[in-house]
């Protein structure tokens, strides 16, 4: 039984239609029972240029917040360095995920961007969920397939070389490749369709970081 008091408003999205979802890579989804933090944004509310500085602020906040759960151990001399490394990695990865979601969200869809974190004893998972235009989703899936079927190290250097040749390139997946190569992160994706007034295509990117 649900009891409502005062001016309570709830707007639940019809989600969790897992039969239709497509999963790529090392995607892991766990029930939200442990410590977690979710930050939400409305991509259509203010222009991307104005919102951009929020990405860095949010990413640094999430990194500092997560640091609380991995206290410094005075008996381990390198634990301060490890903590600084973890904060730097989370700040970089969260910023990249937010930048991507701001660039590729379908602003006509009225679907929020959410960044969600899950904390386990020796790993952190970051999830960013956003809407995406069908044409962009196809390009994105092609890139994911290329990534999953390549040596990420070789692909990274090749993309850097290609970028240097091409004047107009904007989406090269370099953010994902740095996460894998420089931060040893595991990545996974879930593409789904959410039934609203008209169907909205969504993508959730998961990044798992060992700490």
């Amino acid at each position: 039984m649900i009891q409502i008091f005062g001016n309570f408003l709830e707007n639940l999205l019809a989600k969790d239609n897992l039969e239709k979802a497509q999963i790529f890579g090392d995607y892991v989804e766990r029930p939200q029972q442990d410590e977690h933090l979710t930050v939400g944004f409305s991509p259509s509310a203010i222009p991307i240029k104005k919102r951009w500085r929020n990405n860095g602020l949010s990413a640094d906040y999430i990194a500092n917040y997560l640091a609380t759960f991995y206290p410094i151990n005075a008996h381990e001399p390198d634990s301060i360095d490890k903590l600084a490394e973890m904060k730097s990695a989370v700040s970089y990865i969260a910023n990249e995920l937010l930048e991507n979601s701001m660039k590729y969200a379908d602003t006509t869809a009225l679907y929020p961007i959410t960044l969600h974190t899950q904390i386990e004893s020796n790993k952190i998972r970051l999830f960013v969920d956003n809407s995406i235009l069908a044409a962009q989703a196809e390009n994105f899936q092609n890139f994911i397939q290329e990534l999953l079927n390549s040596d990420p190290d070789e692909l990274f250097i090749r993309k850097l070389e290609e970028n240097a040749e091409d004047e107009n390139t904007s989406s090269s997946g370099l953010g994902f490749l740095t996460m894998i190569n420089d931060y040893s992160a595991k990545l996974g994706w879930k593409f789904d369709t959410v039934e609203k007034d008209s169907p909205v295509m969504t993508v959730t990117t998961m990044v798992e970081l060992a700490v």
Partner: protein
Amino acid sequence: MQVKGENYNVWYDKNNSAVNFDGALRLTGMQDYAPILQLLNEVASTEPPNMVLDLQRLEFLNSSGISMLSKFVIGMRKKKSVQMKILGSHSIPWQGKSLKNLQRLMPGLTLDLQ
């Protein structure tokens, strides 16, 4: 020569042929990085015998920024008369992780993490 924004400052110091980077660079893409790339290319076009990129106070660089630096370094492979050096800091974790990639793109580049 200088490119300055809300959270960053990039400038050329003629005395030691160093381009100094301060702050946090999170620009939206290659277009927004164009003024910084142009500054780097202008310095390189004077063909100094040594050119230093001093990143020791660059706390943050997003992947678009990494892409911009890579593009510059790849371009410098053709300028064999200029000895490239990148100065970084061990106390800024991203530099230990990501700067080595620039050396892979240009094996003649000196990478000095202090």
